Structures are given as C-alpha cells and as structure tokens.
C-alpha cells in the first residue's frame, strides 16, 4: 500500500514568559493509505497537539507533515476532515445543513450537496433526523452527525480527536462498531486520538503509544487481530493488557508530578490483588 502521510522530525514548543515547554519532540510517523492509526498516551503527552498540527490548525516549531509527498500549509478540506471531542456542530443549522456545510464552502451546487449529505446521513443511520435542530439530538447522535459531516468532506484522511470520550459506555460501544464498519466501507485513512487503550486496540491497525514531558513516541505497536473486533473479547483484552504495560510506567510518571513526592502507585494498592487469592478456600 502506498504511503499517504509522513510526519518528519516534527517538534512543537510553546514559549511562555521565561519558559519554553517542549510539547512534541522529534516525532516521526509514516502512515499508509487506508490505515487506522490510534494515538494513545497520558494526558499532556501532546497527542491532541499532534492531531491539530496534522489538521493544520497549529503550526509545528520544526519539521513537517507531508501528504502524498507534498508539504502541507493551511487547514482545509483538501487536507483532512476533522472530528472533535465535543460536538462541534453548528447550533444555528439543522442536521442536514451541518453535513452540507463543507460542500457549501467548496461551492458544490445545492442539489448535489443535498444528495451527498443524505447519503452520508444514511451511512450513519440518521437520515430520519435530517431537518431536526442540533440541540434535540443526544450526544451519540451528535457525534454521528459530526462523523457524517467529516465523511462528506471526501478527503482521504480523517482525523478524530477523542470523539467518543464524552459518551456513555453503551453508546460508545455501538459507535465503535459502526466506525469500524464505516472505515471498512469507505477505506479512509484514520488517525484516532484517545486516552482509552481498549478503544485504541479495538479500532487500530497500529497503536502508537506516546510519552509525556517532552511528548514523544514511545512505541508503535501493530495490532494483528481480525475484524470486526468486539470490545471485551478475550483477544482484545489480552492485547490491551500488553499495551497497558507499555503505558503504565508512563502514566505513573506523569501522575507522580501531580502528587506529593513520597507517593507511589503501590502504596495505594490497599485492596488485595484478587489473583493472589484465587485458590483461597478450596
């Protein structure tokens, strides 16, 4: 498969008064066409910043992002479609108008963009709600509209910034399944940021584990599991534990910075580890 996106020696510094914070340091990622990449990491590791840079919403301090070999300049439809954590749907437009928005900006005639918008609303199973105002939708429905709006942009690359993190777990599971199916049908390249390892393993072809201070790539793990994957199935859980091991030390390191200096994760494990007592009472 051909390479669609390359991130080369990318760094990002935030300069505030008297202090420079390195949010991202020397990031190198290559992504093939049609791949599903998940970025996981502790809070503050710069995964959202990385996504924003790929989207063109922020500028890197050094290095660059290349789409099909060309360096990228501004955010826009020819670059990538983006889906945000909170629903970034426009409340002054109804569902259909939201999905049409990108096509309207691109100057596509009214009739054609309506047909296309309805097609994508059907894909997320929301065509019944096309004339409804946004505020009447539930959180899960909103994210589905946002997905339809992003898909309607027709760009090869779809960036998702913790899109399901605000949803309850049942809704989340349904949407994860639906996303796998849509990805399968549309063959898009997806970069999906999440802090949830299970979600990352469930969805990704590759899970890229990031570390914080400075934000960097710790490990790039290929997930060799068949699809569709079910949350909490044995094989998924097994891989999740593997990835969590990679992350644990990292999460603890970040947490330590937020606690008193004598704190460690072992000290708060006051509950007995159930596996130690498995055979008790037999």
């Amino acid at each position, binding site marked *: 498969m051909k390479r669609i996106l390359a991130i080369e020696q990318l760094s990002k510094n935030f300069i505030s008064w008297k202090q420079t914070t390195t949010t991202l340091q020397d990031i190198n990622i290559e992504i093939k066409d049609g791949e599903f990449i998940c970025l996981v990491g502790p809070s503050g590791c710069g995964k959202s910043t990385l996504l924003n840079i790929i*989207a*063109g*919403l922020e500028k890197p301090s050094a290095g660059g992002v290349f789409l099909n070999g060309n360096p990228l300049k*501004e*955010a*826009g*439809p020819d*670059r*990538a*479609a*983006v889906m*945000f954590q*909170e629903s*970034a749907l*426009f*409340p*002054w*437009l109804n569902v259909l108008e939201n999905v049409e*928005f*990108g096509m*309207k*900006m*691109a100057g596509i005639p009214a009739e054609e963009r309506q047909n296309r918008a309805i097609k994508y609303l059907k894909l997320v199973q929301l065509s019944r709600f096309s004339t409804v*105002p*946004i*505020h*009447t939708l539930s959180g899960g429905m909103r994210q589905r509209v946002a997905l339809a*709006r992003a898909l309607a*942009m027709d760009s090869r690359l779809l960036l998702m910034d913790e899109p399901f993190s605000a949803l309850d777990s049942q809704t989340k599971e349904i949407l994860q399944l639906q996303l796998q199916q849509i990805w399968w049908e549309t063959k898009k390249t997806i970069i999906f940021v999440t802090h949830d390892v299970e979600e990352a393993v469930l969805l990704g072809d590759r899970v890229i584990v990031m570390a914080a201070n400075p934000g960097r790539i710790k490990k790039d793990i290929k997930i060799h599991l068949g699809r569709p994957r079910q949350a909490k199935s044995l094989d998924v859980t097994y891989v999740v534990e593997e990835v969590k091991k990679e992350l644990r030390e990292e999460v603890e390191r970040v947490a330590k910075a937020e606690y008193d200096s004598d704190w460690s994760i072992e000290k708060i494990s006051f509950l007995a580890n159930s596996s130690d007592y498995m055979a008790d009472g037999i």
Partner: protein
Amino acid sequence: MLILLIIWQTVFEIAVNYLKIWKPFYFPSPLDVGASLYQLFLDNTLQIAILVSLKRLVIGYLISVVLGIFLGLTIARFKYLTENLSSMILGLQTLPSICWLPFALLWYGPNESAIIFLIAIGSTFAITLATLSGIQNVNPIFIRAGKTLGAKGFRAYKDIIIPASLPILIAGLKQGWAFAWRGLMAGEMISATRGLGQVLMAGREWGGISQVVAVMVVIIFLGLTIDKLVFSNIEANIRFRWGLNKT
C-alpha cells in the same frame, strides 16, 4: 392592567379631588388621558405624529445597525483596535444621546437630519458593543471546525462568526432600539415641528398634562408592540434553534 388603572384613578380621586394636595394640572386622571388620546386621534395629530416619528426612528436605527455592526466587526478583527477602542466605545455608550444635541444642531441645524443623527448615535455604540462581545464569545471550536471545513476569510465571518454570535447580537440590537427611542425623544422635544416628542412638548406648553401622559402611553404601547412583533419573534426563533429554552 385594569387593576393598575383602578389604582391610578383612586390615587387621582384621593389626591386631587378629596385631599386637594395636587392641582388637576399636576396629575391627570386616566379618564382625562383617554379623552385626550381620543381628541388627538380625531384631529389626526396622533396618526401623523406616529408616522413621522416611526419614519425617523427606522431610518436612524437602520443607520446605527449598519454602522454599529460594521464598527464592531472591524474592532473585533484587529487586536490592536480591540485593546485600545473597547473601553472608549463603552464610555461613548454610557453617554446619553441628548449630550450629542449641540453637535447635531451645529452640524445639521434644527431639522430632520439632526434628529436622525441623534437616534443613530444613541444606538450605534450599544450595537457595536454587542457585536464585539458576541464575536469574543464565539466558541473557538466553531472557528476551528469551520477552518477544517473550508470556511476562511469572508466566509468564516458570514457562515460561522456572525451566526454564532447572533444570540448576543440580537440582545444588542434590542438594546439599540431602546436607545434609538431615547435619541428620538431628545431630538423631537427640542427641534421638531411634528412627531410624538413635539406633541408631548406641546402638551406641556399648553398646560395639558393629560396630553403628555397620552403621548407617553402611546410610546410605551408602540415600544411593546414592536418588541413583541419584531425582536421577540427573532429572539424566540434563535433560542429555539440553539435550544436555549431548556435549562
């Protein structure tokens, strides 16, 4: 409403007719005001005054809407202007429109333009301020989402920033409308030969306090009607779309 009228009439009966602490020309009874309204209506004074005043009001107000929104957009667009002009605009807004009267008379003379100038200057800054705060309160995620969907430059203003700031903007337009009335009255009372303000002042000069109150009643009634017909409808529409009615 009816209860208020009864209280009014009772106060009049006690203070003017019974205790005689107020003279009849200090304080009118609702019946006198009604009679006066009817009289003004019969000789067409009222209708002409309303039409003339509304015409001035609409022209002045439209000017201030265009000017106010334009100023607000410009100031919000450039950080330098936002930092330096915001407090000045706030200061100008607190200035009652009647303070501009000397300028109005000096620049235009006692005529139609002077009144329209007073109306416009009174409401422009309120609208500018609302535009400013409307834009500043736009959720940044809308702008970011807009960018990734291809809304840049002028399109970003037309399709994202202005619709996103509408709930605040509409409140400012409403406030501007109230200020426009103040400007209108200031202008008409002093330099007009026709209009509601002039009828009100004529009442004062010829000792007809009931005519003064009659005009006041008409102004309140017009204000409420226009608010109900125009602004409330638009506001309710926006609130419904945004889902702001649910708490």
